[in-house]
């Protein structure tokens, strides 16, 4: 973008910090996909997301960094840990976490990395931007969201509601589904809930047979 690109051989302090955080992120991501303990994978995911939040901070995206800490580290990893706990996964070291096509997938990943890194280095070798603080503060970002991006924001809230309802419907066991009343009586999990007061099923086509 600018004609005077600083040399790669004299990195600034921001670049050094970013590269260290990026190395932490990539290393912990490697540990996420190679560790043999399921819970450790979730904990290394915390390290990776924290390092990425640091990367966002260096790139002057403060609000995104804190949202990353709040949602990814605080909510998503906790959800993952709940999932690990509820599926009764082995806590200790387990040897069957990797499938048989490990070599092929490593090959595919290496090819992807080679192509992407080559293209990116070739394309953005001369791209340089000075970092000015305050570009991604909550004030600017909030003004941008609620002035320009209001419609996608509202659509996203509807999507979150749909995901919430879907998760509840998927994880409840006392919804009888499309089975007929006799089979629903024989189903194991109908603890006192009457089928008449419930919302009608979208697929009632089985009752007509």
């Amino acid at each position, binding site marked *: 973008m600018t004609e005077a690109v600083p040399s790669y051989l004299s990195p600034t302090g921001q670049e050094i910090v970013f590269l260290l955080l990026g190395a932490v992120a990539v290393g912990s991501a490697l540990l996420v996909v190679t560790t043999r303990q*399921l819970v450790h994978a979730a904990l290394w995911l915390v390290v*990776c997301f924290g390092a990425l939040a640091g990367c966002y901070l260096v790139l002057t*995206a403060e609000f995104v960094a804190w949202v*990353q800490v709040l949602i990814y580290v605080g909510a998503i990893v906790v959800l*993952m840990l709940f999932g690990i706990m509820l599926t009764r996964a082995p806590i200790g070291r387990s040897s069957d976490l990797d499938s048989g096509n490990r070599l092929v997938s490593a090959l595919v990943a290496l090819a992807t990395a080679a192509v992407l890194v080559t293209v990116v280095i070739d394309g953005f070798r001369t791209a340089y931007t000075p970092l000015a603080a305050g570009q991604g503060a909550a004030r600017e970002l909030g003004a941008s*969201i609620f002035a320009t991006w209001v419609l996608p924001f509202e659509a996203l809230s509807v999507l979150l509601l749909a995901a919430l309802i879907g998760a509840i419907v998927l994880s409840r066991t006392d919804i009888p589904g499309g089975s007929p009343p006799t089979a629903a009586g024989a189903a194991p999990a109908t603890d006192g809930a009457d089928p008449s007061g419930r919302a009608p099923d979208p697929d009632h086509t089985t009752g007509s047979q």
Partner: protein
Amino acid sequence: MHIVYPAVVSALLFSIGVYGVLARRNTILVLMSVELMLNAVNLNLVAFDVWLADRLHSGQVLTLFVIVIAAAEVGLGLAIVLALYRNRRTVDIDRLRALAEPPPATATPEPRTGLPPATPSTAPSTAPSTASSTVREPSEVAAEVEGGRGGGQAIRRERGTP
């Protein structure tokens, strides 16, 4: 800040996520790898937003949207995984192959499908037929992938045949 640095870091993160999706067997680990790929995209969005000095902050706003969509995706994915675990007692992707083509030769199901122990117990009580209660057809096995609904339909279809 050279833009190459965040771009290379995000490319490496994306490749690691690709490896995790392809090589892992546990479904929750696959979800974690998908999160790694989404984070690689987020890093790219933030870096290019800073580089282009976007007045509307499209990159950072889109990063927030991607984070929200990732949260919804993880919630739904874990609900699906838990429903799967309730029905099949396993979350190994390699064993969940009931949607594959049935073996062409015989009607005996392959032993790796991981059938739930609860669903066949209701079949002999509701279906007094003698032939179909012992040998399970592969189509019936395939119909049970849908969980309770498909199982109920398979039982009813079985009862209607004699």
